[in-house]
């Protein structure tokens, strides 16, 4: 590795330094745009007591769901969970903690975290269980709750293309939470479908500038579909 070259050759290198008890931010919505190989590498590594900040927790046998198999997750910060039996079992048994966070608030918590803003006010969740115990402030006659931002020890991100400097482009709706996660990790690791030389991506089309990215690895992806819906031609 030299200069701005962020490319690493192995998944072991990509996740070097990930330790028990750390907080990991993960991109993805459902199974779309999830860093599936980085998740698998965490499983192989056997890191435990992890807190994951991710909109969902995968399904049984795929995505973050695989990390439930060996009880590697201590806590999930998510907006919607429970598409997996194992999740339900561990939650009901008290082995897993869940902090339900509205989807927009979750995205903004990561965006703010990466942008150096420690907290913000939002109307989302005021007067609901989400607002309990949080500071309330009135602006122009409307009540808002204070939400604290989130940063992570690691961010694991899936992008479509990267150049070796770590400039990223996402593909279609696989973008979702990935750009915010990328900004908010102390170490941001990105797996991509294609790595090109600097200059090959149009600078005006970069979604995530390389300044946020620490490591880039080339992967191959299954891209499992959660709800396959088609129409007849």
């Amino acid at each position: 590795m030299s200069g701005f070259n962020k490319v690493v050759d192995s998944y072991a290198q990509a996740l070097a330094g990930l330790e028990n008890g750390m907080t990991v931010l993960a991109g993805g919505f459902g199974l779309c745009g999830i860093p599936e190989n980085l998740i698998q590498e965490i499983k192989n590594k056997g890191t435990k007591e992890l807190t994951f900040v991710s909109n969902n927790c995968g399904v049984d046998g795929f995505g973050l769901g695989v990390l439930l198999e060996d009880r590697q997750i201590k806590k999930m910060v998510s907006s919607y969970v429970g598409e997996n039996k194992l999740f339900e079992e561990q939650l009901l048994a008290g082995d897993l903690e869940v902090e339900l966070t509205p989807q927009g608030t979750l995205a903004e918590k990561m965006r703010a975290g990466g942008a150096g803003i420690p907290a913000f006010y939002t109307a989302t969740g005021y007067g609901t269980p989400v607002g309990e115990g949080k500071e309330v402030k009135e602006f122009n006659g409307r009540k808002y709750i204070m939400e604290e931002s989130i940063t992570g020890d690691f961010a694991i991100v899936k992008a479509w293309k990267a150049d070796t400097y770590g400039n990223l482009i996402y593909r279609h709706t696989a973008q979702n939470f990935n750009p915010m996660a990328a900004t908010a990790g102390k170490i941001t690791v990105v797996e991509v479908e294609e790595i090109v030389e600097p200059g090959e991506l149009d600078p005006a089309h970069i979604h995530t500038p390389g300044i946020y990215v620490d490591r880039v690895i080339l992967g191959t992806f299954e891209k499992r579909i959660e709800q396959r819906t088609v129409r007849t031609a």
Partner: protein
Amino acid sequence: MALTREQLAQRVAQEMQDGYYVNLGIGIPTLVANYVPDGMEVMLQSENGLLGMGPFPTEAELDADMINAGKQTVTAATGASIFSSAESFAMIRGGHVDLTVLGAFEVDVQGNIASYMIPGKLIKGMGGAMDLVAGADNIIVTMTHASKHGDSKLLTKCTLPLTGAGCIKKIVTDLAFIEIKDEKFHLIERAPGVSVKEILEKTAGEMVVPKDVPEMQF
């Protein structure tokens, strides 16, 4: 006769206007897309990060990287844009979406809505619902008027944990079109063949009934 799911969606669709950006929730709200009035242009927002949701793909078009907020594979409509979740909720929270349609378990006379959690059952989460109800000015709740056991879902005070406080002004049920003003339900229209008496029997919260309550027109 109580409205079918399809008729309910059809009635909600009459509230759309040309040039509207609309967010449709899962379930009956999704069906509303099938009844956009002829000659009207409406763009559907999907909160995972798509403005301009098109129909489901053909087998040939199927793409794992192209899904909606229900995690179904979709296509992008002509003129669509795709963005991050933060951008998507900036649109929603910032009040830029013209109409939001979503389901609920309960609504009360103060415009409170409960739609995401039943204590004692497994809590899956609120997804984007809390952001949608907090951010939108024009929200329509669609639901059956009463539960399968006959319990009213239009209450004086919600019994379930809230999704949002004081944010609902319009409800379309299988029996009626109702508005909420001054901490009361106001009966605006009734489903064809449904009596005001039946609607009142199935409404627990206080309801104002004008002299003449027209039937919905389809």
